[in-house]
């Protein structure tokens, strides 16, 4: 009997989560990276909270963007090296769905933890507690879009040896809208204003990413397997 596409995607998701929890150090690294990057701002700009509050949206978002990009390296590489991706492509299941499941797992393993620790980083930069819902929402949506967008870049650089830097160069320009809207939502949240507008735009980008990015990633994976 043939497994349905959704059931197969669910299996891939569970497998990826299980694998990740057996290798916990890989999960912690992006978070550690994010914490260190946020720490760089007080050290390089000023320890004054009033000044830090001004740069906090940028600091948090640059940290989150770089941490998600760093984590993208692990998205496909292991599965490409041991042939799992090839089996996915040959399985007769929709590769788009399987890759979407992998990307969702990746977000659960990197984006969600980032969302959880972002408020702590924000508080350390002098952000008022009232701004935290906005930061949580924008980081959650933004990292999801970054995972989707990054999946394309990660799939494209599969055939490249030491493609890490190239992956960053390809993905960063494409990720700029997420950075702009995310930082804007955070800034508005800190000012205590309504941050709905940039959040809606982030959500629109995420929806666009859900519909198109797995298709492009699947095409890129197939190309790298040829």
């Amino acid at each position, binding site marked *: 009997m043939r497994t349905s596409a959704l059931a197969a995607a669910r299996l891939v998701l569970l497998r990826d989560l299980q694998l990740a929890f057996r290798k916990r150090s890989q999960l912690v690294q992006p978070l550690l990276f994010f914490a260190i990057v946020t720490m760089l701002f007080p050290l390089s700009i000023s320890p004054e909270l009033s000044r830090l509050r001004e740069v906090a949206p940028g600091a948090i978002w640059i940290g989150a963007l770089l941490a998600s990009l760093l984590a993208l390296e692990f998205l496909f590489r292991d599965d490409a090296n041991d042939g799992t991706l090839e089996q996915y492509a040959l399985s007769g299941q929709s590769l788009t769905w399987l890759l979407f499941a992998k990307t969702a797992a990746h977000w659960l393993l990197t984006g969600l933890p980032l969302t959880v620790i972002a408020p702590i980083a924000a508080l350390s930069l002098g952000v008022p507690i009232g701004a935290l819902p906005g930061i949580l929402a924008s980081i959650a949506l933004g990292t999801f879009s970054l995972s989707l967008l990054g999946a*394309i870049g990660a799939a*494209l*650089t599969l*055939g*490249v040896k030491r*493609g890490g830097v*190239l992956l960053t*160069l*390809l993905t*960063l*320009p*494409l990720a*700029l*809208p997420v950075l*702009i*809207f995310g930082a*804007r939502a955070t800034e508005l949240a800190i000012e205590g204003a309504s941050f709905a507008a940039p959040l809606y*735009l982030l959500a629109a*980008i995420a929806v*666009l990413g859900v519909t*198109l990015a797995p298709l*492009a990633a699947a*095409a*890129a994976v197939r*190309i*790298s397997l*040829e």
Partner: protein
Amino acid sequence: MTWTWLHKLGSPPRAYALAARLTPWFAWPAALLIIAGLYGGLVLAPADYQQRDAFRIIYVHAPSAWMSLMIYTTMAVSAAIGLIWRIKVSHAVAASCAPIGASFAIAALVTGSLWGRPMWGTYWEWDPRLTSELILLFLYLGYMGLRSAMDDITRADRASAVLAIVGIVNVPIIHYSVQWWNSLHQAATVMKIAKPEMPPAMLIPLLLMLLGFTLLFFALLLVRLRGEILQRERSAGWIREAVLS
């Protein structure tokens, strides 16, 4: 409807010969139009009442900026054609587009920055147009980086085609997000070129330059395309006949 013409065009020897034949038909009109446009823009057109002679850099700046966008579109479309119908020449066209487009983007950035000095008092202003242009340049460089990172040419072709298509979907989003970002962060003091009633003496040279640059792009593209085809088909038999004849 038959598609044989497309496949004929897609055969490297034919495309090579056609490119050689067409090049002068684009290069000469391009040279004439650019000379006429420059003469009209730099000599005949009256000085702007506000910007004096400084505005004349528009005759290089605006066409370059326009070309960098148009070339990106051309690149993405021909990459998509290559990806869908598996036409090698189409990939070669996309590959040849990238360095030309990047050069026009650099030209637009440099002229924009030089124009900024007398107008804004600084060489660089985080103006939405300049920022988008800079991002476009990075998109070109990323595309070229991906191509050069792959040894196998068919894979480089197909992977970079996916990137170009993703990029073209993203270009409008980037454009509008940058505009939105800028309008929030800056008072609208930066120049506005929103003057549709540009007098014909200024407008006509601009249009000539625009057309001239477009033809120049096609001429450069054909020359680069021939180089690209030669490199790809270097072990094919027809190359010897084509080059030695």
